[in-house]
């Protein structure tokens, strides 16, 4: 009982202090109910799903950020220093939405060679 309470206390902490992953090993240390904690890659490294990899040609990019806007996954970010977009290949699923909507056609969908 007291053990369980300790575990709950950790889950109840804020983003910085709570455990990054929940690692329960037995019935006895489980909390009462299933509580999930937010984490990037909740479905694993979804970058592995890709057959095509979006590659941005910064030469042609006009920083319109349409790709950022339309990326369903939120894997495109903007570098504040350069103003160019960057893709998080750990999680980019390779759907091609960014490439289809780039007005300058400067995102290439290149075949992954796995």
């Amino acid at each position, binding site marked *: *009982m007291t053990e369980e309470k300790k575990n709950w206390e950790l*889950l109840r*902490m*804020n983003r910085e202090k709570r455990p990054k992953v929940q690692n329960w090993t037995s019935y006895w240390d489980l909390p009462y109910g*299933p*509580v*999930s*904690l937010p984490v990037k890659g909740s479905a694993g490294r979804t970058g592995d799903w890709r057959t095509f990899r979006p590659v941005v040609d910064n030469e042609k990019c006009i920083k319109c950020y349409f790709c950022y806007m339309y990326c369903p996954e939120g894997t495109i970010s903007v570098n504040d220093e350069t103003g160019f977009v960057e893709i998080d290949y750990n999680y980019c699923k390779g759907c091609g939405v960014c490439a289809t909507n780039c007005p300058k056609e400067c995102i290439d969908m290149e075949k992954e060679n796995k």
Partner: protein
Amino acid sequence: MVKPKFMEGPLKGNFASAYAAMDADVDVITAYPITPQTTVVEKLSELVGEEEFTERQHVEYVRMESEHSVGAGLVGASYAGARTFTATAGQGLLYMTEMVHWMTGARLPPVVAIQTRGITGPGWNIWADYGDILSLRDSGIMIQFIASHQEIYDSILQGFNITEHPDVFLPLFPAYGGFVLSHTAKPVKRIPWEEAQKFVRPKTPEWPHVWVDGERPIMSNALIMPQNFYTEFRIKIHEAQMNAIPVIKDTMAEFEKTFGRGYGNGLVVPYKCDDAEVLLLGYGGNALQAEDAVDKAREQGYKAGALRLRTYRPFPKEDLLHYIKKIPYVAVMERALAFGSPTGGAVSTDIMAICQRDPKARNAHIVPFIGGLGGRDVFLDEQIDQIKILYELKEKGEVPDRKYKMWDTFWTGLITGDKKVEVENQEYFGDI
């Protein structure tokens, strides 16, 4: 401070429910009317606007559009950490069923008062029959059978101390006979606000296992794969039921100490069991009437005792065995029919199971009786006859026959053609 309109006097069972919820300082009530529960929600509608309450309490009272939504609303409010209450019966409870399971699965602590009512199928029926609440026997809720008006009030007030106990976190459904208790008035004493607040569990900003906070976000009740602890979380619910046994006892003991009245140990209520040779075991109003039957039978020389099952889930195995071992001739009277079950009754089946697992109770004689379905009266004579049947069994070593015995179960009050039955033209048909 405004003087309360009612503190003690004759009160309808349903009004006792409403006052108890208010005195337990509930935060959110969601409600939808159904006979014989209606007067609970009507009374609550009044109370939430009465000065006595508005000057000290903030109750969010939501008139929902269905019982499924009532259940879902309780779940939502309870997730937020609020103390929640509602009441329903019969079809309403059936319609809420999906959400009742959600309450237990999510380990939420509402208290839901049930005015038991016959389940429809053969035809509408709005009168006492515990088939509604017993259909949720295996859902993980705690079930209590309430036998008197004062007990309705006291049980609901005690309810949150049990449901919100950190070892428990399960909803509690105190159930009492529709019309029999809900619509009749008997003396009831309210507990003054300050005293009630000293007894009722203090509120917390959130529950330990579920909370709403943007800084500490969680997702609740996500999909769990078979290999990943679903089994364990289900067993945790069973564990919570087991944990509730001492909590119910402690709560009752504390209540009795503070307010000078109680109902057995909270789990079972014995009557003249000390020297009894046979035992009438039942629940709800019928079990209270059994005490009269015991007195009458004793006048005729039968040493009977009565045992009222007050808490059905969790199942008070030890307490029942304690009496059954001493008094091994037991009539189990039920006001609900579990179709196709070993005895036709859920409680008698359970009792046979615990006896089987205890070497000292294995030879006890458990005799199932079912009657009073859909509000039919169970008469004192019929209960005395149950005692006589037990004595015949005790003397001859065999369960005697009766015309109303079928499949080894006695169907108390069965229409067998012996007596003329008059179907009257009733004035009141009730609201369905």
